């Protein structure tokens, strides 16, 4: 059992959620309530990581964040080492790969709120922030929850992007899915089996927790 890989997988999942959730709520809501020119293009761009083969996505991320690109150099100046083949690089790649898994459910969640209900909140004298905090966010909560589960589950299972951008550095970028592949290559069926079972247990537990959470939220439609 590669405990370091499990730790990296869980950190990567949690870190991706931490980065993406605030952005996803802001952007998902924006797409849900605003109409602007070019919205179709923006929505398509948001969805691209979903349909792109992970290796292709990984390739472009390497090109974008590599040592030869200005973005890559800027990152290197800040964190002190090149972004690819580091945990930070993995985190950035994972965040980008998961954009559609976060934005779409949240957008649907906000879209499900009738515009009358939003207007009613304004007419009740709530400031825009209070409207968001007390009315919209609680009502879009199921969408936010779905976004978190999808992101976490997807991050645990991500393979192509991780291998392309992170490589397979033990203790740094070797996630559990990569470790399973690694063990299989080494004909260590037992090691791979233990880790696969661990991922299965973590996934089932995640689903159970979220189901319990969404039950507690109770029926919200009137």
């Amino acid at each position: 059992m590669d405990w370091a890989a499990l730790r990296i997988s869980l950190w990567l999942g949690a870190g991706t959620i931490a980065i993406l959730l605030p952005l996803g709520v802001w952007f998902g809501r924006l797409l849900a309530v605003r109409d602007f020119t070019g919205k179709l293009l923006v929505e398509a761009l948001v969805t691209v990581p979903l349909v792109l083969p992970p290796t292709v996505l990984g390739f472009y991320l390497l090109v974008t964040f590599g040592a030869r690109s200005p973005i890559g150099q800027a990152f290197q100046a800040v964190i002190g080492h090149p972004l690819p083949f580091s945990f930070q690089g993995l985190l950035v790649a994972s965040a980008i790969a998961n954009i559609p898994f976060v934005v779409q459910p949240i957008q649907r969640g906000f879209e499900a709120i009738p515009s009358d209900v939003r207007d009613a909140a304004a007419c009740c004298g709530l400031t825009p922030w209070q409207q968001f905090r007390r009315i919209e966010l609680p009502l879009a909560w199921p969408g936010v929850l779905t976004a978190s589960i999808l992101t976490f589950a997807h991050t645990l299972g991500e393979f192509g992007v991780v291998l392309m951008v992170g490589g397979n550095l033990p203790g740094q970028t070797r996630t559990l899915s990569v470790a399973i592949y690694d063990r299989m290559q080494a004909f260590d069926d037992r090691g791979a089996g233990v880790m696969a079972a661990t991922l299965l247990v973590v996934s089932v537990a995640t689903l159970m927790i979220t189901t319990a959470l969404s039950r507690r939220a109770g029926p919200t439609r009137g």
Partner: protein
Amino acid sequence: MLAIFGPSGSGKTTILRAVAGLYRPAHATIRCGSHSWTDTRTATFVPPYRRAVGLVFQEYALFPHLTAVRNVMTALSHQPPAERQHKAEALLKLVHLSEQLSRKPHELSGGERQRVALARALAREPAVLLLDEPFAAVDRSVRRRLQTQIDSLRRTLDVPLVLVTHDFDDVVRLATHVLLLEHGRAVASGPISTLMSRPDLSWLRDAVGLGSVFDARVARVDADRGLAELTFDGGALLAPAGHLQLNTAVRVRVPAREVVLAAIPPTGLSLHNVLPATVAGVHADATFEAVVVQLTVGRVVLLAEVTRDAVARLSINVGQRLHALIKSVSIDLVAADADDTNEEQ
């Protein structure tokens, strides 16, 4: 109460939304008392949450995740937190919902949701209360009760009300002033009795028929004959007693096509009402086969639709004295004070 009346798509709701600040018109001046809410010339626009408006939405628009009392408390953020619960409960009591405080919207009936929405709108202590088709989504029996409740609220609270409706029944029952809208344009506006005694509102004529509206009091109830005597400014009418109660206010609508004119008072007729009247105007419209005659009875104006031939035969002229004949059963009555406070089952 001002009723904004017009067909679907005439811009009624848009006006309401503009007043609430939910819609930003290209050119408009909206003032409430001394406050300028929208003025496109000075680029003034007060956002909805800073306008003292209460808006009751057509589909209620309650917050589905909050209980009835929490829904009302949401509109009480201008009050100290300690008092909000108490105030919200008092408002729900006002709309007869003391038993439903902790229910969520999906556990309430349509009429109950509507009343929560009303309590929530009142919680804001609005300078104007806006009602957008408030009765469109509830069934008929609930509708009557809500109308009565809103009417009694109007009398107890000192808040101007604006009601948007495409149902003429709401106008006759509730409005003191009317704004007629057609294709986004104001066709006419004024006090309901003045407006309804105008003979030239062809759109109103085609939509609901002309007919004067005025207020009266129940002066006498004759249970044996099943009739009630209604006195108004300068005259009296007999009408079916129905549920009318002595000494209560009643709103009367006399449809123009139900009024018959006679040069001399006829005898031997079954009808009860023969009112001496003076012709105030004769309105002929090329697009309409009938002629509308305006009559004054005391200080009330009646309308009568008669044929061109009848005008010629009676040689009807302004200032002429005639008799207006009205069948008692053709008079529409709205008892204003019948405060039905029964809880909805």
